């Protein structure tokens, strides 16, 4: 709207070198996410979604292109965005609360303050009573929730979530999706989500980007025409059905051409 976007990806291109030459992973990816926006990325596996996130997180340099956060380049500057992966990556030797405050601790927030914040969040998102437990004592859903809170406590304005709920069962996933929506609205984060789940993308996002098979390019950019707050029964509306069909067909086409070129 305002023309000033929170995240701006400009012509990002990346190839990986290997013995037989280079494998292009991303090709001239460009898009923008407005402040407070929720954008999902869909695409066949191996099309470079995680690579793109690593670049936005400042962990990897693109061959060409730039990524701007509030108008400033973040290339090669990690620690500017919150990053959450499919694996919860909780440190097994630390208690849940010590894991959640990890990002805050790395920014030298005093333990006391960080813990106060963490405890409030844990209570709100159903982790009360598990503060001192070790990660292996929690269910997969709870661990992922803890990972989400850790990402949130980095207090970055932009969160990158790379297939965060991919390994969870349907019900747990729905609970976490609702939790994520709450986090997004309450804390006014700008969120970029990679998912395989078309319904999840529709349910959560304002915008959906469909990437092509490798090398990833932006194939389609769609706006989700659903009001907020979203409810589960919206998922059965004709609009959503139509959107779902369109997205699935696009993805199938991409997967299909991938299979042909592999065969």
């Amino acid at each position, binding site marked *: 709207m305002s023309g000033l976007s929170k995240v701006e990806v400009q012509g990002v291109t990346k190839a990986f070198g290997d013995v037989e030459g280079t494998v292009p992973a991303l090709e001239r990816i460009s898009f923008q996410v407005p402040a407070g926006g929720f954008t999902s990325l869909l695409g066949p596996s191996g099309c470079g979604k995680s690579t793109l996130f*690593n670049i936005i997180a400042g962990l990897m340099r693109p061959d060409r292109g730039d990524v701007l956060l509030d108008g400033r380049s973040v290339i090669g500057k990690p*620690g500017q965005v919150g990053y959450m992966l499919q694996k919860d*990556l909780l440190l097994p*030797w630390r208690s849940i609360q010590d894991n959640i405050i990890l990002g805050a601790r790395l920014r030298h927030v005093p333990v006391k303050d960080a813990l106060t914040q963490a405890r409030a969040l844990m209570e709100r998102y159903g982790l009360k009573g598990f503060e001192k437990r070790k990660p292996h004592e929690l269910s997969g859903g709870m661990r992922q929730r803890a990972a989400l809170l850790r990402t949130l406590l980095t207090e970055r304005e932009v969160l990158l979530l790379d297939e965060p709920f991919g390994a969870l069962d349907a019900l747990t996933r729905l609970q976490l999706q609702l939790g994520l929506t709450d986090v997004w609205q309450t804390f006014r984060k700008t969120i970029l989500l990679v998912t395989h789940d078309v319904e999840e993308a529709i349910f959560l996002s304002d915008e959906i980007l469909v990437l092509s098979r490798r090398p990833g390019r932006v194939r389609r950019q769609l706006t989700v025409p659903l009001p907020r707050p979203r409810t589960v029964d919206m998922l059965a509306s004709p609009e959503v059905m139509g959107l779902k069909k369109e997205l699935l067909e696009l993805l199938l086409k991409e997967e299909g051409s991938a299979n042909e070129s592999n065969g």
Partner: protein
Amino acid sequence: MKATGETPSGVLDRRVRRSPAVQLWRWGILLGLLILWEAGARLGWIDGFYFSSPAQILQTAVVKWQQGNLWADIVYTGASTLLGFVLGTVAGSAVGLVFWFSRRVALVSEPYLIVLNALPKLALAPVLVILFGIGFPSKVVLAFLMTVVTAAISAYGGVRSVDPALETLMFSLGAGRLRVFSHVVVPSAMPWIISGLRVNIALSMAGAIVGEFIASDRGLGRMIVYAGTTFDLKLVWVGVVVLSLLSIVMYGSVVLLEKALGKRWSAQRT
């Protein structure tokens, strides 16, 4: 978190291990063997001169103890073993861990580690005695050399096992390399380091004893050599038995240490 030393032992296994029947059999067999040994020596089935007998060994040990030498020898050998073990483990682990900082240094060093590991360090004992004298230092150095390489290899194994995604996570949180090292690499490598301790305490003792065999004026190893050259085989047996007990005590302490450390560092097991 697999390499925590202890084999995966299920609940059933643990219950069986603690059962009184198992305990009874274990001690019973030991007692039986001792009785057989004693009877064999007395009835002339085995040559008492070479094999002595439990009663004679005990008697010799008591005499030796009353003279006050035995305790001094135990302390001497025990101290060089422990000191070599601690120094070797700490130094070796540090080297292995530091390899995390440079993949290139690690890759260049790898073959050297393998060769050093294969090198029969005990063969160096005469050189070490010449270099460091016949006293305490040469024993400690040999015990140190026995442990330092395996400790480095264990720690390096731990470093290589660190989940790269964990490193990525830490960097994404804005951590520098030192923080990633102390928050993730060292704790991840701890189970590997811990799993090397048992082997290392035995190696360290072997180093200390061989050092005493070569040249020493004190220690259990020296006592055995001295007794051997004077054909005092009873005393040799005293040395062997006391060394075994010392080794059991040290091994047991390391197992306890492992348990304590393991609880702290490998959260996978309860």
